[in-house]
């Protein structure tokens, strides 16, 4: 049975058996990596010899720490899923497209293409949602389709060739921290490169002699100097975008440009630059929805989950024709992964939410016989109802033997 990464339809490059994803063309990324690594190595190997002795050994240590942080942020930006929305299944596509007004020829004989927009009001502002014919889904607000990678990306910012990937919801914070940390690091290297040259020229009493003696300093200073202009500029631009809770894509399109149109309010703005910063940089991290490491179980085999766990229903012919696996590949049902506390907490949560449902449901569901009987509040549970959470989950534990899936996309 193929894994999902093996049947991935987009133009992105999937690496490490589904654990990493990036753009197909990484040539500019290799240039970025080379510039950072080579400059850092030259700085640490040559400049830091004098600096460590003359100033302090903490100079190369801090440089090394910054270098590692910059690399971590860069590699995370490049190889993580930017927030790709998996393509819709053929059934979903058929359902949506059957509701779209089809192409028509009007009175004048003009061809009108199928209508694929729908209006949605979000906090007082009307958004037009587009149906993406490539990905077969209604594109969420703030999502956009990247033509380079041929994916819809959630909160699409831009496709960056320097990092070799789209920048979207999931990797925007890594991209931003890469910019900021690289700005600081470039400044650090440039300053200490100059300090090194100054110290050397003081010792040799001749600046040109110092430059000839340490040509790598000159090289690293030049690289850092020219990089600073673009990196700091971009970092400043993105700081401004973050404080306004806007993406580059939205800024270019003028989606929230209130100077042009006062009614183009930003419903995602939390009202406060600091609150926006905190949410964008330190807010909840969406896991990758691609689930690349899972088996491509096909459309009908999810029905096997019901037949294994719950009551046996008659599986339709279409479903029966697909491979039914004994171990349902449900990503999040690996109950053995959590420790007991986490499990009991989550079970507690499930308990509460089921109590909500049990309070709102009628005492006996019509036409059910005695299959599903609900007792309100803290009453003794009846058959077929989630009772003490541990019991239900315990029963579930013995039934559900899903393969433990390691985090697939970083």
């Amino acid at each position, binding site marked *: 049975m193929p894994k999902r990464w093996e049947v991935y339809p987009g133009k992105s490059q999937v690496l490490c058996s589904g654990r990493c994803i990036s753009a197909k063309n990484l040539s500019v990324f290799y240039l970025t990596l080379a510039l950072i690594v080579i400059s850092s190595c030259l700085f640490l190997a040559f400049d830091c010899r004098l600096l460590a002795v003359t100033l302090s050994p903490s100079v190369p240590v801090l440089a090394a720490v910054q270098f590692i942080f910059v690399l971590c942020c860069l590699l995370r930006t490049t190889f993580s899923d930017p927030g790709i929305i998996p393509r819709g299944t053929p059934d979903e596509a058929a359902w949506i497209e059957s509701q779209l007004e089809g192409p028509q020829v009007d009175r004048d004989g003009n061809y009108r293409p199928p209508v694929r927009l729908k209006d949605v009001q979000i906090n007082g502002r009307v958004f037009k949602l587009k149906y993406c014919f490539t990905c077969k889904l209604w594109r969420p607000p703030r999502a956009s389709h990247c033509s380079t990678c041929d994916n819809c990306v959630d909160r699409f910012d831009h496709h960056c060739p320097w990092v070799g990937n789209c920048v979207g919801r999931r990797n925007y914070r890594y991209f931003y921290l890469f910019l900021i940390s690289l700005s600081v690091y470039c400044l650090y290297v440039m300053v200490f490169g100059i300090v090194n040259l100054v110290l050397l020229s003081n010792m040799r009493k001749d600046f040109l002699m110092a430059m000839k003696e340490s040509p790598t300093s000159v090289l690293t200073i030049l690289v850092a100097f020219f990089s600073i202009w673009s990196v700091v500029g971009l970092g400043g631009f993105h700081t401004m975008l973050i404080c306004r809770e806007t993406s580059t894509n939205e800024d270019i399109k003028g989606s929230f440009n209130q100077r042009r149109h006062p009614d183009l309010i930003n419903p995602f703005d939390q009202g406060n630059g600091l609150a926006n910063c905190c949410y964008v940089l330190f807010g909840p*991290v969406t896991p990758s929805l691609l689930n690349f490491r899972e088996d491509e179980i096909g459309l009908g085999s999810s029905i096997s989950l019901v037949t294994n766990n719950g009551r046996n229903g008659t599986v339709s012919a279409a479903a029966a024709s697909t491979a039914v696996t004994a171990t349902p590949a449900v990503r999040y049902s690996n109950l053995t992964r959590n420790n007991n506390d986490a499990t009991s907490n989550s079970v507690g949560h*499930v308990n509460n939410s089921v109590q909500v449902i049990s309070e709102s449901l009628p005492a006996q569901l019509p036409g059910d016989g005695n299959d599903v009987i609900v007792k309100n509040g803290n009453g003794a549970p009846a058959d077929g109802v989630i009772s003490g959470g541990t019991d239900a989950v315990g029963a579930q534990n013995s039934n559900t033997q899903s393969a433990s899936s390691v985090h697939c996309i*970083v």
Partner: protein
Amino acid sequence: MSSSKPLPNSYSATILPPANKAFVPRDYSHGTELRFSTELPAKLQGRIPEEVFTAVIGNINQLLIAAETGSASVYLESCFACLTGYLAYLCMETQYEKCLRSVSRLVEEYNRTVFGPRNLSMIDPSERGLRVIEIVLLRP
């Protein structure tokens, strides 16, 4: 007036939705937060009481919305991960993943108790990239 231009061949005029599946779309009226529509799909009319369906989707929505809420623990977790150069994410599970995991468990329980007895099966929205909740009609 008769049309003079024919429809393009690439468009199929007979797109039929699957007869045995109902889809619950995302509800974007509150923004980009994770929320599914609580409106009962036409295919499920008569198969499941509306208040039961609304309560089921409502409970799933509660868990999903909690996943995207920026709480103090979420911010602390992100700060800690940032300080480790995001290497911490290689070995720890995020709050979001825990919420999605509890949604999966809830969907399994609902399949056992609410949908299974009615010959319906709810597919975990994580399996569908959080685009739709798919409900399969096992018996016509």
